[in-house]
């Protein structure tokens, strides 16, 4: 008998089959994912999901007998009371055939249920979304380069000398050319001394000649030869911008209700999940503002209440200040999302527009403005009264394609708005 441990074998043998299966059931899985998203909380977006899809697209049909025609006979165990000739009302499930119910063959009409991993789930969800303004990013990338080790070279600066590789070559050369070892020479000298002290001059003479020969040999075969020398080689590779920072700007003045904040939160979280799929590292900066702006942690950002007026430009200034200090644009992709109910101190809107247009937007990859309503704003009065900020931002939007603005008044709209903003093929502001 042979025992083989197969456990270290590569994992995920079924992965490619699984991908094929998902590709096959793509349409069904996608609608199931959308359905599931409508029901779940934003905080759970990052988890996997159990989905049930109709078996139509993934049925594996075969010829089999219909259960509802003809005469069939069955032998079943567990008779308790029946005698020959008894009549039994027909069971609904099909006598003695329970085994094939819910089988993977998809012969039934039941939904096929399985679990998507987190990655698969998000892939499906974000499938037709992409990051806007990739051109700008790739232009920037050329500035950031990294040195990457790329083997060895025979020329280079002494600082890059690879001692390890050099000594290895040297040793190989010495062994192959049979350069006498220092210990051999020592041993020979000792033997000569011995022979002399024994008075065996003839032997001493012979050994001495041998010693001469070996010493000569070790002189013409150097310990380290220039051909042994190797230097570490480095290659300059452009470093992809894998870091992103996301600025969350929110008005926390008294006019923002909890419901509005909740809407904003949902939007921010979606953006965050979306970004961490694209970038290795994503920083988040929370900036809240009333009539003054400050950087806060997440908890404070969403849950503490402030009172005071509303001066939006303070938040933009704060953002600029932080971006300049901590997030140089050659290393960071900057995304910003601003949520507000649209109120602003009258004279400030003009300043916002100029700040945004001349300073903030040139730094950003993307700036989204989401105006949250309480769900009854425009529809109740029948006319949509644009807020101060909306009117002001409306001037900026046409000029800057990576600035977008949307209104959201109900949690169910979040996903569709988000989809709209990041839909492939450009943003239609």
């Amino acid at each position, binding site marked *: *008998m*042979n*025992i*083989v*441990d*197969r*456990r270290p074998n590569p994992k995920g*043998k*079924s992965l*490619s*089959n*699984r991908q*094929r*299966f*998902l*590709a*096959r059931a793509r349409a069904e899985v996608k609608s199931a994912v959308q359905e599931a998203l409508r029901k779940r909380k934003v905080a759970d977006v990052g988890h996997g999901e159990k989905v049930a899809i109709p078996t139509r697209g*993934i*049925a*594996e*049909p*075969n*010829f*089999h*007998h*219909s259960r*509802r*025609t*003809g*005469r*069939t*006979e*069955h*032998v*079943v*165990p*567990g*008779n*308790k009371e*029946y*005698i*020959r*000739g*008894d*009549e*039994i*009302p*027909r069971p609904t499930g099909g*006598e*003695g*055939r*329970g*085994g094939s*119910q819910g089988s*993977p063959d998809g*012969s039934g009409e039941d939904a*096929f*249920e*399985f*679990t998507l991993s987190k990655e698969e789930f998000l892939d499906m969800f974000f499938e037709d979304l992409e990051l806007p303004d990739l051109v700008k990013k790739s232009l920037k990338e050329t500035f950031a380069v990294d040195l990457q080790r790329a083997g060895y070279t025979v020329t280079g600066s002494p600082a890059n000398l690879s001692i390890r590789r050099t000594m290895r070559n040297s040793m190989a050369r010495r062994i192959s050319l049979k350069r006498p070892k220092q210990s051999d020479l020592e041993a020979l000298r000792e033997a000569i001394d011995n022979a002399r002290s024994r008075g065996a001059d003839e032997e001493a003479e012979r050994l001495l000649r041998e010693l001469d020969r070996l010493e000569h040999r070790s002189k013409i075969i150097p310990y380290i030869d220039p051909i042994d020398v190797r230097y570490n080689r480095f290659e300059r590779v452009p470093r992809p911008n894998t870091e992103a920072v996301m600025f969350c700007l929110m008005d926390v003045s008294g006019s923002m209700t909890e419901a509005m904040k909740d809407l904003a939160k949902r939007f921010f979280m979606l953006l965050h999940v979306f970004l961490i799929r694209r970038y290795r590292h994503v920083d988040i900066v929370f900036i809240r503002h009333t009539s003054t702006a400050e950087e806060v942690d997440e908890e404070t950002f969403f849950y503490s209440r402030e009172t005071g007026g509303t001066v939006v430009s303070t938040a933009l200034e704060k953002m600029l200040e932080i971006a300049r200090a901590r997030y140089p644009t050659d290393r960071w992709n900057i995304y910003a999302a601003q949520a507000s109910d649209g109120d602003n101190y009258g004279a400030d809107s003009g300043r916002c527009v100029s700040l945004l247009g001349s300073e903030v937007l040139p730094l950003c990859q993307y700036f989204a403005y989401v105006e949250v309503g309480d769900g009854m704003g425009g529809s109740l009065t029948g006319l949509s009264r644009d807020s101060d900020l909306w009117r002001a931002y409306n001037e900026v939007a046409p000029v800057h394609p990576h600035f977008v603005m949307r209104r959201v008044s109900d949690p169910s709209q979040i996903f569709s708005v988000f989809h709209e903003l990041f839909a492939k093929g450009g943003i239609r502001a």
Partner: protein
Amino acid sequence: MPDSVALRLETATPLFTGPNWDYSGLRRVYDAVERIALDELGLDVYPVQVEVITSEQMLDAYASVGLPLMYRHWSFGKRFAYHETLYRKGLQGLAYEIVINSNPCICYIMEENSMTMQTLVIAHAAFGHNHFFKNNYLFRQWTDANGILDYLSFARDYVQKCEERHGAEAVERVLDAAHALKDHGVNRYAHRTKPNLAEERRRAEEWRAHFEATYNDLWRTVPGADKDKDDSGNEARLLEIKRELGLPEENLLYFIEKRAPRLEDWQQELVRIVRLVSQYFYPQKQTQMMNEGCATFVHYEIMRRLHDKGLITEGSMLEFLHSHSSVVFQPDFDDPRFSGLNPYALGFAMMSDIRRICEEPTEEDREWFPDIAGSGDGFGVLRHAWANYRDESFVLQHLSPAMIRRFRLFHVSDDSTKPALRVEAIHDDVGYRKIRGALSRQYDLSRREPDIQVVDVDLRGDRCLILAHYVHNGVLLEEQSCRAVIRHTATLWGYSVKLLEIDAATDKTLKTYEVAPPG
């Protein structure tokens, strides 16, 4: 087994004590089990290769229908997703073992198993199933244990190459279609032996000699019927063509592979791969109850003997009995857990019963089984049964009244035109033979699967392929999936396909399906 406990005189040291397994322990256990299996039970097995795998790898193996390697197809991914969900939800435990009919016999064991379970698995799979694979006539006739792994690796590589060359989508279309027909891609009877070249040459030579010897130039002058042969000879020629095509043919995939007019070489090869894999599983489908029964009976016997010899501890024995009794549990028909006859339960019970009949027969047994009752050699009879029967014939030959009473089997008939089912027979004197016959028919694969054959090809017209389903007892095909399968068949055939449902008794056509040629 209180008596065996009392009888144990010598105190051998147990092979293992704790629940954890290790390699040396596995080897000790294997050697002990092997001694019992070969020397005491007289089993004959392929060499064994035990492979330790994780639960995830077990799920992988589930997905590729229990084979260690398989070509890629989405349906295996679907199976994986299905089993994974059940497993993660805790609805379904994983099998302790998977065994592959190959030489050497590969036996997967899970790393999570306790040492007792590993012992059980080795006895069950490495000896029980292994013996059955090596000796049962169906496996000997239909499967090539030496070549299966090589063939599968060829199939996997071939499918992959096809995908690279012709695109995954084109390959998938062919495989999907072939999969739909895979139950009808098996040879149910052995072919006549292939004539070899020398033999053929000799026959041609003989025929020519005969022709020369009997040549008579006079025949040339007889006015030929050649000109007006068109009318009268047509029928005959068509029959001739049908004969040459090998019609009727019940192996649909074989017929398509050889005859489909528009199938390219690589597509033929794909159809062939599906067909051969299906053929490989054909014996398993016909012997599931016997195979599991054999393995269960063997593991029970081996574990009992190990315990008698003091090689496993009381604790292990209890753990084993717990697992064994849940394996051979048979819920009643009205139990929510009921899903048909449990092959482990029936197989194990019947085999234990045969042994009882041989060793301690009752009057009834002597009457029913005069040839084996009281023969004393239970294992000899069982080995003979394992080698020469399949489920259907095994039940017909060996199901005893005692078994029918024990399982309280009863026979109901279901006529779809009547509102209620009727009990035809129960476990009484008039019922035994009826139940035995009916149960045997229930295991008969040719009755369980629809009888579908290629009956004609319209070679003069639109090349329409005509299939016939011979309807027995008025049981028609399930309509929706039937249509889907015919569509798949048309994909392979390249022209339109027609399926007639013909009543086998009256030759009347009951229903017709037709699918236009694929666009």
